[in-house]
């Protein structure tokens, strides 16, 4: 049996390891198009802020890890899939045959559809190659403009602030991290950033980036209202798109991502998909969704591999969840943090101390949560949500005081 995995991110690597665990003899080959050993994008902010060196971003730290597991890892870019004869074509024309194929090609950072994207010093923050360019320009006292205050933007914000000192953030939505935070949480986050001397411009669209002749920095970010922000470095975090263009003509069905069923299988026999590129079952909605987060990528990788091994486990869908620290303020969100129709919601807000916890219920079950400034026992919200624990009398206690959520779990599981 020959398993071929395209993409050497967390989804691909976890899949390869799971395949090996389940089959000592199968041939396992990972093909990835980045020049480094398999690494984690998530670690890039910590490379930028100096906490780790490049090798600290590597997914596996043991020397010889892939060789020891007899997992082949080769550099190459897959350009086409011919499902009819179970083969791939690489850039350069080489063909690779497979018995089972896993597509774990992730996503790429998108550009803005405005002039000036090609100016020197305008970068995404998605790959190690991007990180090296950013590190060159984000020097002490340089001006940095970050475009996009979504989840990824807010994570890299701290590193940019630490490196450069002068940071402006431009976000077209009316609030920061609009896809994981309500107005109260996002308001706190904005106030927090401003207290750290970060300029936060929400409801602001970028019209162009142009060369600047005056002021500090060789370019300026021009907003639709005419304001200009001078910059040495512009970092883009405005969204991602799945890497699936190479599937054109393959017959593999796609939508927002590669469509996969409850076995992580695509519509084409012997082809599976996992991670940021896959539009798979979503725990909260029962629909199909691209999550583009690390925990889902890892779960996909493992469960896709078990299916490729023929164990055929059913996948219940992952819970979308995030945790981030924005210039030191920790926030997290889980599932239906914005609630459901007819559901109840309880919150505790402490604006002065930047603390907020909102819990969302459907009947007496927790279905979503949003927290600012909470660092203890956070995971229990994931547990209560994914286990669909009936909270009974604890629901009213939690509506009155959401901070008792860990107690509610201990009471329901240990008493």
């Amino acid at each position, binding site marked *: 049996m020959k398993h071929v995995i395209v993409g050497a991110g*967390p989804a691909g690597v976890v899949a390869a390891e799971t395949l090996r665990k389940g089959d000592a003899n199968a041939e396992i080959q990972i093909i990835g198009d980045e020049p480094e050993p398999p690494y984690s994008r998530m670690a890039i902010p910590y490379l930028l802020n100096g906490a*780790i060196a490049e090798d600290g971003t590597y997914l596996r*730290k043991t020397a010889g890890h892939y060789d020891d597991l007899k997992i082949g890892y080769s550099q190459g870019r897959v350009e086409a899939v011919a499902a009819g004869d179970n083969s791939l074509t690489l850039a350069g024309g080489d063909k690779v045959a497979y018995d089972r194929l896993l597509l774990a090609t992730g996503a790429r950072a998108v550009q803005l559809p405005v002039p000036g994207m090609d100016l020197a010093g305008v970068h995404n923050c998605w790959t190690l190659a991007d990180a090296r360019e950013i590190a060159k320009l984000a020097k002490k006292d340089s001006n940095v403009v970050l475009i996009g205050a979504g989840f990824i933007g807010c994570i890299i914000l701290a590193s940019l602030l630490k490196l450069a000192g002068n940071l402006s953030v431009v976000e077209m939505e009316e609030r920061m991290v609009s896809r994981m935070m309500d107005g109260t949480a996002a308001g706190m986050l904005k106030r927090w950033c401003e207290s750290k001397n970060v300029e936060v411009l929400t409801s602001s669209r970028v019209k162009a980036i142009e060369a600047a002749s005056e002021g500090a920095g060789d370019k300026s970010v021009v907003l639709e209202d005419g304001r200009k922000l001078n910059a040495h470095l512009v970092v883009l975090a405005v969204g991602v798109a799945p890497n699936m263009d190479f599937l054109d003509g393959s017959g593999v069905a796609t939508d927002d991502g590669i469509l996969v069923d409850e076995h992580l299988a695509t519509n084409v026999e012997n082809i599976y998909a996992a991670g940021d590129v896959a539009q798979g079952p979503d725990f909260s909605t029962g629909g199909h969704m691209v999550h583009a987060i*690390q925990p889902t990528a890892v779960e996909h990788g493992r469960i896709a591999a078990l299916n490729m091994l023929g164990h055929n486990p059913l996948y*219940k869908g992952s819970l979308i969840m995030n945790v981030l620290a924005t210039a030191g303020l920790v926030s997290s969100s*889980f599932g239906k943090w914005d609630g459901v129709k007819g559901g109840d919601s309880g919150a505790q807000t402490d604006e002065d101390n930047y603390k907020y916890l909102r819990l969302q219920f459907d009947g007496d079950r927790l279905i979503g949560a949003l927290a600012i400034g909470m660092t203890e026992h956070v995971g229990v*919200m994931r*547990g209560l949500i994914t286990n669909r624990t009936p909270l009974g009398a604890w629901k009213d206690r939690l509506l009155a005081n959401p901070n008792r959520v860990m107690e509610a779990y201990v009471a329901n599981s*240990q008493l």
Partner: protein
Amino acid sequence: MLKSLQINPEKCTGCLQCELACSYENEGLFNPAKSRIKVFNFHDQGRMVPYTCTQCDDAWCMSACPVDAISVDAETGAKVVSDAACVGCKVCTIACPFGTVNYNAASGKVIKCDLCGGDPKCASACPTEAIAYVDANWTGLDKMRGWAEKTDSGAQAEA
């Protein structure tokens, strides 16, 4: 035979010796707020429940970690955080469905129970044997396993 922490809530008096011992062993100070084991007090039922990581087999914290910073101690079976490798991304804190991995802002790393390398100080400090370090197949662990099974997004995943 691997050993594990056996918790007998009915024996707990709420004296918090375990929390003090844990924080002293791991953080060098007697401060229950820094303890990795926590005693929950259910006043209305008159019950106290010491609670910490049970080093579960699924180890969501370990598989979610993007940089291989959590590994299994071969001798104790504990899932141990390597401070050198941990970047403080906190993904493990949301992945653990038991809520037993916490972020420590002071160090910028996460902390969790590591069984003190095979000599758990909470167990030796407990005067009533509400916490004991015993062979790993005691039945109380089943509660955790049940919880773990429900959390798994591929419940029938392990062949």
